């Protein structure tokens, strides 16, 4: 066996181990269904809506917040116009008459964290949440989050289940499946107390988090990831409310998607480096032994597999062309594939790849059930056809930028 293939087997082993580990976690602690119980208390909650050039979607975001099934006197919404140069402020003014809504403006400082800290400083609620201005909450989302806080008082932050808002084009459909897979992973990481990010769309914190460990940091433009790392470092628990549904708009073009994912991926690398003492540190449990090392390994495995595939394809192509030139055999139309069992690829690697894909499919369907959502077949096709080709691009770019310490801005 050549070294290239050996590396692929190692990647497959890691991938399978990760999926099996999460499935064991699922079987040990299956996520419960949504209940009709109401919380005993309704803590005062402020939802921060930081926005930069979100005139088109801000209105629907605020409407969804105003439609939350929560006592109006307990829920306030703080729109923070972070130096927008479009009509965001005008769009926000449409809600100025609503007593639940406050609108503040600030100068843009190049990253989201400053807008969040500005909002935290200008709010009073016992719970402080954030909702990106291109995301929309289900009416009972806050109730579900509050129930999670109430049931387990040691929880300091709760993340929701995120879906893609009305996916239409191929990239959005691909991301729709990816997000459903993420719903499964997030819930299982909750089971393992190892959530590594508290995402922007509708994650809710107890205010005391900020008094204990401080507010958001720039953190390589991934303040939500750094906050999760810092909470773990200080023993503050993060949980997931899989019944709290929020849908979010996702990049519709390849360029925007790659820019967003480069920021996320680079954020993971840089934050993992900043908190490298957590790796394989028994004090941080599954986070140190599974989530962080496997996250990093997945990074490298994704790039390695892509390089291996591209190298194999290119070398086969070049060999064929050279052979054709040297032998003088005229080019021939490729014949139909042979369906004889004898010539089918039944190598060990093929079986393992199919097993990984099958387990991925299983986890996606579990995520679908958890989030009570639908996945059209063309969405699944987009995911399996595109993700493996696109993801290595942003992974490689993130490593490149990290190695060169290239400074980037908040791009999406």
């Amino acid at each position, binding site marked *: 066996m050549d070294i290239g293939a050996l590396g692929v087997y190692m990647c497959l*082993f890691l991938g*399978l*181990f990760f999926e*099996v*580990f999460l499935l*064991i*976690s699922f079987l*040990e602690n299956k996520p419960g269904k949504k209940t009709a119980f109401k919380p005993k208390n309704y803590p005062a909650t402020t939802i921060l809506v930081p926005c930069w050039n979100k005139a088109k979607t801000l209105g629907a975001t605020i409407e969804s917040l105003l439609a939350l099934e929560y006592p109006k006197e307990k829920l306030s919404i703080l729109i923070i116009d972070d130096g927008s140069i479009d009509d965001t402020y005008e769009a926000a003014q449409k809600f100025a008459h609503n007593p639940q809504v406050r609108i503040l403006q600030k100068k843009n400082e190049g990253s989201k964290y400053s807008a969040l800290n500005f909002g935290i400083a200008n709010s009073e609620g016992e719970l402080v949440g954030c909702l990106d201005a291109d995301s929309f909450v289900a009416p009972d989302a806050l109730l579900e989050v509050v129930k999670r806080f109430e049931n387990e008082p040691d929880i300091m932050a709760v993340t929701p289940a995120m879906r893609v808002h009305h996916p239409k084009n191929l990239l959005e459909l691909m991301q729709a499946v990816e997000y459903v897979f993420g719903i499964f992973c997030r819930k299982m990481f909750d089971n393992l107390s190892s959530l590594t990010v508290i995402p922007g769309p509708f994650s809710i914190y107890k205010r005391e988090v900020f008094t204990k460990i401080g507010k958001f940091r720039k953190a390589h433009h991934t303040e939500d990831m750094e906050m999760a790392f810092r909470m773990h470092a200080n023993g503050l628990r993060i949980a997931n409310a899989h019944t709290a549904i929020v849908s979010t708009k996702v990049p519709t073009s390849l360029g925007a998607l790659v820019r967003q994912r480069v920021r996320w991926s680079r954020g993971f690398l840089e934050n993992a480096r900043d908190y490298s003492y957590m790796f394989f540190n*028994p004090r941080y*449990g*599954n986070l140190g*032994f*599974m989530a962080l090392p496997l996250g990093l390994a997945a990074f490298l495995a994704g790039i390695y597999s892509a390089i291996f595939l591209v190298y194999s394809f290119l070398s086969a192509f070049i060999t064929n062309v050279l*052979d054709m030139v*040297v*032998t*003088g*055999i005229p080019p*021939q*139309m490729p*014949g139909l594939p042979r369906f004889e069992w*004898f*010539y089918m690829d*039944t*190598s*060990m690697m*093929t*079986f*393992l790849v199919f*097993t990984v894909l099958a387990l991925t499919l299983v986890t996606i369907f579990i995520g679908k059930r958890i989030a009570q959502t639908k996945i059209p077949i063309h969405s699944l096709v987009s995911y399996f056809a595109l993700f493996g080709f696109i993801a290595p691009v942003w992974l490689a770019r993130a490593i490149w930028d990290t190695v060169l310490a290239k400074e980037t801005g908040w791009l999406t």
Partner: protein
Amino acid sequence: MQWQRYILAFAITAAIFATAFYIADFIDNRRIADIREIQEAISIDLLSSETQFELLGSLDCELLGEHPVLSEELNSLAERLSYTENNLGNDNEQVLLLKKQYSLLQIKDYLLMQEISRKCGTKSVSILYFYSNEEGSCENCGRMGEVLTYLRQTYPDLRVYSFDYNLDLGALQTLVALRKIQPELPALIISNRSPVYGFKDLEETEALIPELKTLATTTPQEE
């Protein structure tokens, strides 16, 4: 932290790997069994022709016209053997054994065809092709093989017998010695003429076989 979960996940993953290995190995063995069955069938056909010859004292040219030759079976066997060799490696013991049997069948078929040509007056065009799979010993053997495969597909009546020069097989080494083939591979013996050494592209190879003009052609895609 529950270490049992890690151990269980590791054990299940290892079990999946073991299962994949077992299934792949099982199917590879089925392939080898399939090749062996074809070889046995060819062997019986060859034996039948030889026995027929002994019974009649001469070949029944008419009968051979109706059931001409084993060319297709041998070609199919060659393809399967080549595919299996690529998958399992040319140093796999089972592959080596199958190659030896295949080489013997080719030699027997070659000799039978010589006999048929002589007795029935038919003109067959044959190529004995000697190659090597050993690393660095024959850089262009693969390409020579491609040229010959193309010719065989284009001229179905062209009989190409390919032999691994280094195969440890007495009959093959006797053939090498009889034909005085030097280890300068690839080497070709076209219709019993003197050996030709070195890689030849399609045009050069066609020029070496003027008899091709007498053979019917087909397009490779139709094969």
